C-alpha cells in the first residue's frame, strides 16, 4: 500500500434520500464513495481497501448489526461508523462493543460526520500501515535461518558476540558473519532499529 491511495467511503443505507445526501456530503469534500441500498449487495461488492463504512443500523433484510458481525468474521479492516435513529442507543452501544469505530445519530451535522469519517480514515490508514509493516517484518524474520534467528534473539538480549560464541560453542568470527547477515536480511540500520522492528512484529 502506498500513502497516495485515496480513501473510499462505503455508504450502506436503505433510504435513497439519506444515501444521496451522504454521497453529496463526502463527494463534495473529495472522497471516493460507493453506496449500497442493502447489506447483501455491499457484501458482494466491497473491497477491503483503505476507507471507512457508513452503515445504517436499521435496514430491512440484513440489519447493520448482522453485517458488522459478518465483517468481523471475515476480519475486514474497514472501520464502521453506524448511522442510527432515535432510540437506537442500546444498539449503538452494542455495536461499539463489537468493534465499531463510532456512531452517528440521525439527524446529524455535516461537520460531525466529516470529522468522524476523517478520524476513521486516519485510524484505518494506521491500521493498514501497521499491518503492512508487521507483515513485512514477519517476512524478513521468516527469511532468517534457524541459527540466525537464534543468534538474533541472543543479540537483542544485549549479549556480546564473544558471549554468544561461548554460549553456542562456535567461533566468534562465525557469530560476526551471522550477525551481519541478520542485519542485512532484516534491513536494520542499527541494533535499536532491529529491536523496534521486533517490537512492532510482537516478537519482543
Amino acid at each position, binding site marked *: 500500500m502506498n500513502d497516495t491511495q485515496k480513501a473510499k467511503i462505503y455508504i450502506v443505507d436503505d*433510504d435513497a*434520500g*439519506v444515501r*444521496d*445526501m*451522504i454521497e*453529496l*456530503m463526502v463527494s*463534495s469534500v473529495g472522497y471516493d464513495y460507493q453506496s449500497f441500498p442493502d447489506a447483501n449487495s455491499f457484501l458482494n461488492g466491497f473491497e477491503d481497501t483503505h476507507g471507512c463504512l457508513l452503515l445504517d443500523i*436499521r435496514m430491512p433484510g440484513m440489519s447493520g448489526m448482522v453485517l458488522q458481525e459478518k465483517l468481523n468474521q471475515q476480519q475486514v479492516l474497514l472501520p464502521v461508523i453506524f448511522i442510527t*435513529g*432515535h*432510540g437506537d442507543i442500546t444498539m449503538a452501544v452494542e455495536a461499539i462493543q463489537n468493534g465499531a469505530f463510532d456512531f452517528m445519530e*440521525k*439527524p*446529524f*451535522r*455535516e*461537520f460531525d*460526520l466529516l470529522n468522524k469519517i476523517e478520524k476513521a480514515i486516519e485510524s484505518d490508514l494506521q491500521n493498514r500501515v501497521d499491518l503492512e509493516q508487521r507483515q513485512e517484518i514477519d517476512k524478513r524474520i521468516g527469511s532468517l535461518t534457524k541459527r540466525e534467528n537464534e543468534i538474533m534473539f541472543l543479540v537483542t538480549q544485549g549479549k556480546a558476540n564473544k558471549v554468544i560464541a561461548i554460549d553456542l560453542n562456535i567461533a566468534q568470527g562465525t557469530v560476526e558473519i551471522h550477525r551481519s547477515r541478520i542485519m542485512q536480511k532484516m534491513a536494520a540500520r542499527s541494533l535499536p532499529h532491529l529491536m523496534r522492528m521486533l517490537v512492532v512484529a510482537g516478537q519482543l
Partner: protein
Amino acid sequence: MFRFQWWQQHVLARKMIVAAVLFSSCVTLAMTLFQLGLQYRHHIETIESSSTIVRGSIQKSLVQSIWDFDDATTRLQVEGVLQLPYVRKVRLSLSDGRLFEYGSDSTIQRRSERIPLVFDQGNDRRYLGELFIAADLESVYWDLSNYAMTVLFSNFLKTLLVVGFLSYVFERNVGRHLNRLIEHTKTRKLAGYGRPLHLERLANEQIDELDVLVDSYNEMQQRIEDEHDQTLAALETRQELQQQLEQLDRQVMMGEMATSLAHELNQPLATITGYADIGQRFNRQGEQQKLAEILDKIASEGLRASEIIVRTREFIKSRTHTLERIEVSKLVAQSVELVSHVALQQQIDIQIVKMVDNCWVNGDIVQLQQVLTNLLRNAIDELKDLDSAEIWIKVRSEDEKVWIDVHDNGPGIADNIIGKIFDPFVSTKKDGMGVGLAISYNLIEAHGGALSASNRKAGGATFTVLLPTIK
C-alpha cells in the same frame, strides 16, 4: 266435564285408582270364588245329611206306618221329608199301587235318590215300596248366586269408598303439591331469583318425603343460583380482561405506530439537516448553482416528510372504518347498557333525558359505542365518590347534524387541562394513560364529526359528540 278433565289431568291418581280397583277386584273375585266353593260344598253336605236323616230315622218309622196302614202318619212323614232342606219332591210309591206325591216336579237341576222300603221282622222280609226323594240344586245355585252378588256388591261399594278416599288423601297429600311443584318449576326463572319453593301444608312435626323434596329442591335452586352468579362474575371478569386487553392492544399499536412514524420521519429530517449543512458550505464557497440544487432537494425531502404523515393518517383511517347506518337512539341506549353494570356498582344513575327519534348517522357502530362508553366511563370515574351522582344524556338534532351531550354533576374539568384534554397522554386520572379521549377525538373526527368538552355553570362537565346525520 270437569270430572273428565280431572281424570285426564291426574295421570298419577288415575293410575293409582285403576290399579287399586283392578287389584281389589281380583282379590274380591278370588275370595268370593273360594267362599262360593266352600258354600257349595256345605249345601251339598246338607243335602246329603238329609238323605242320611231319611235313611237313618224316617225310613224305619215310615216302613212301620205303611205296614200298619196308618195313612195319616205316612202322609205326615212323607210331608216331613219334604220339609228337609232343598227337598223339592217326595214320592212314595207302594207296591200295592198307592202313591203319595208331594212337591213340584219342574226342576231340572236335581239330585234324586230312591230308597227301597222293606219290612223286616225276623225272617219275614217284604218289599213295601219305594221312596223317591228329589233335592233341588237350583235353589242351591240361587242361594249361592245371591250370596255371590251380595259379596261382590258389598266389595264393589267398599272398593269405591276406599279408592275415593284414597284419591282424596293422595290429592291432598301429594297431588296438589306435585301440581304446585310443576307450576313453580315452570314459572321459575334465573333472572331476578324467585322465592324458594313452599308447599302449603299443615304443620307437621314429622318430616316426610315431600319436606325432603322441597328442601333439596330449594338447595338445588340455591346451588344453581350460586353457580349462575359465579358464571356471570367470571364472564364479567373475562369481558373486563378482554376490554383491558383490547385497550392494551390499541396502546401497543399506537406505540408501534408512533415508533414507526418517528423512524420514517427521521429519514427526511436527517436528509434535510445534511443538505442544509452542505448548502451552507456551498454558500460559503459561492457555489450558487450547487446551492440552488441543494435547496431543491431540501424542498422535496420536506414534501416527502409530509407524504409520510398523510400516508400514516390514511392508514389509520382505512384500518378502522366499517360504515353502516346507525340509529342514534339505539346507539345511545346500547352504549348506556354497556356501562350500566359499572354505573350500578357505583350507584350512579344514567338517564337519557332527551332523545331524537328516527335520526340516522353513517359510521362504525363499534367505534361510536367506544366513544360514548368512554365518555360515560370517564364520567362514572369522576363521580365515583360523590353522593347523588348523576349522568344524563341529551340528544338534539338540527340541520343534518346531531349533538349527543353527556352531562355529569361531578367536579368538572380543571382549567389548566380543559384546553388540552383531547391531547394524547393527558389524563386527570391517577392511573390514566390519557389515551381514551385522544382516541375518541380522532374517531369522531374520522366520522366527520367533532368532540368537545366544557364545564357547566352549575358545576360538572359536558362532553358533546357532534355527528353529521343522513336521511
